[in-house]
């Protein structure tokens, strides 16, 4: 018996899996789970390291926090605006670039995916220049086309700041979604659309009736990614407006910014963990509903 166990340990898969599982668990899964527990404690590193259990106090207070409400609203806004742009933008550009016999395919694909590979700090700086109120590209163009009355400080105006960030976000990540759809389209055997064309289906019908159903796993991943991103994408929001905390944190902060400020900046670990727990639950719930609707899960 003992020998058999030892043998299966030596010969079976488990020893191979242990290092990966250990790393994954210790620095990803464990912190993801323990956060729910921290949310039930009053852990506050400014006061000390005591883990006193305070029940649902943080969870209730966070819900009443106007800053968290604003962060939640902002995240929803990002999701509602960016998801359709990313999904349809990615899909459209993938369908166009994948067209049979199109010249310069590779060059188009390279350019469209390029921003995904950029460091976010460089992208934020470039776009901060574009949005600059004095000499930025947008205001300069507006002034020269006698639309000077439209100029504004795009990133420091409560009505435009978050939308401006979303533009940068979509500019960057359409290429990511394009790559998802593009690789699936490329993996479809050429004979399938060709046979459909012989059967007299139009280009449009081939796309809607033959290609779209095959793209379903891509849609699942792509939509799930945009929804999760709206709540948890950090870099552009923080770098473009978040550092200065525009508008007392209510103009552009999304959930991850709220979590970061309360946890890392103010060291209110318990309190920020409650917000993180809400974020996790909302993201998983939305994703579950979406994947269910697409009949992927």
């Amino acid at each position, binding site marked *: 018996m003992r020998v058999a166990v030892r043998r299966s340990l030596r010969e079976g898969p488990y020893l191979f899996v242990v290092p990966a599982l250990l790393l994954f668990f210790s620095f990803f899964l464990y912190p993801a789970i323990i956060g729910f527990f921290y949310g039930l404690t009053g852990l506050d590193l400014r006061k000390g390291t005591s883990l006193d259990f305070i029940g649902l106090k943080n969870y209730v207070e966070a819900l009443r926090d106007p800053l968290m409400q604003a962060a939640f609203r902002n995240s929803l806004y990002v999701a509602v605006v960016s998801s359709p742009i990313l999904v349809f933008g990615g899909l459209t550009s993938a369908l166009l670039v994948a067209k049979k016999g199109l010249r310069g395919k590779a060059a188009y694909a390279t350019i469209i995916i390029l921003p995904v590979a950029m460091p976010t700090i460089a992208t934020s700086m470039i776009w901060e220049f574009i949005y600059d109120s004095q000499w930025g590209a947008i205001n300069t163009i507006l002034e020269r086309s006698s639309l000077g009355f439209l100029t504004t400080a795009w990133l420091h105006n409560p009505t435009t700041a978050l939308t401006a960030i979303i533009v940068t976000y979509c500019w960057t990540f359409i290429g990511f979604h394009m790559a998802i759809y593009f690789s699936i389209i490329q993996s479809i055997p050429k004979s399938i659309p060709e046979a459909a064309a012989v059967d007299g289906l139009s280009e449009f019908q081939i796309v809607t009736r033959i290609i779209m159903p095959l793209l379903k796993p891509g849609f699942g991943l792509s939509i*799930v990614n945009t929804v999760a991103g709206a709540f948890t994408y950090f870099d552009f929001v923080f770098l473009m407006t978040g550092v200065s905390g525009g508008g007392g944190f209510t103009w552009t902060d999304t959930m991850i910014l709220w979590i970061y400020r309360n946890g890392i900046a103010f060291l209110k670990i318990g309190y920020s*963990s409650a917000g993180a727990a809400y974020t996790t639950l909302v993201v998983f719930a939305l994703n579950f509903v979406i994947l269910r609707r697409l009949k992927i899960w």
Partner: protein
Amino acid sequence: MVVKSERMNVFRTYHLKTHAFLILYSLFILLPFVWIGITSLKTQEQIYADPFALPIPAHPEVWLDAWIKGRFSEYITNSFIAVFATLLTVALVASMAGYGLGRYKSKLGPTLLKIFLVGIFTPNQITIIPLYIELKQLSLLQGGPVTYLALVLVYSAFRIPFATYLMAAFFSTLPRSVEESARMDGLSSFSIFRRVMLPLSLPALMTISVFNFIMTWNDYLFAATIINDPAYMTLPVGMQFSILGFYTTYYNTAAAGAIISAIPSIIFYLFFQKYMLRGIGGLGLVRA
């Protein structure tokens, strides 16, 4: 014949529109780079005088200035150490796990794969606060060389689920005979993995590593949270530390800094974009 030539015509105009759309979109992506490039070669006065004018006379010394003040050589070295240690760790650990899960029939195998799948769908940013506490408890946030260790542990953990999943999918497609002949030769499981399987999986590992490079090299959030020691800053946080101060006063230096910081990523991307596309495409194949 008439029908056919009409059809060709339809396709041709269609491609014309396609090109028009794709060229416009490409310009939308590329023009910001061009404009920042122009800006980085001007003096402050030239920028204010006309933001769109060509840099005549050009001031390439701005770049030298940005390179020195930005301390880029230091930060790029730090990034290289942290990122390549991560890539090696993930390649080794995930190919082993992928081999175990993709080749062996075991009771726990499917469950383990599902656990990794949860990791793929969990946004890693939500771990930021507990991870901060954990690393603090392990005394990995005190600065010094342990900073590298903290970065590698965290980055590896984030990249392992997808890498393992892809490797398992890859190994499960290899024919049985590969292994059997090695076993006949009396090789142990581990030697089969090391001498037979690992070499076969190099293209798959390449795809994973290129994808992981882009994801870790450009990370800002975790680097900003983990690194407390300016001497160990990676490119994104280091460059924010050294260059962002110029942002409000010296636009040209800041613009040059932004481009310099993007150059390693862009070169890497242009060399390995085929793998990058495959990596993201692999994500599209992940399903429950």
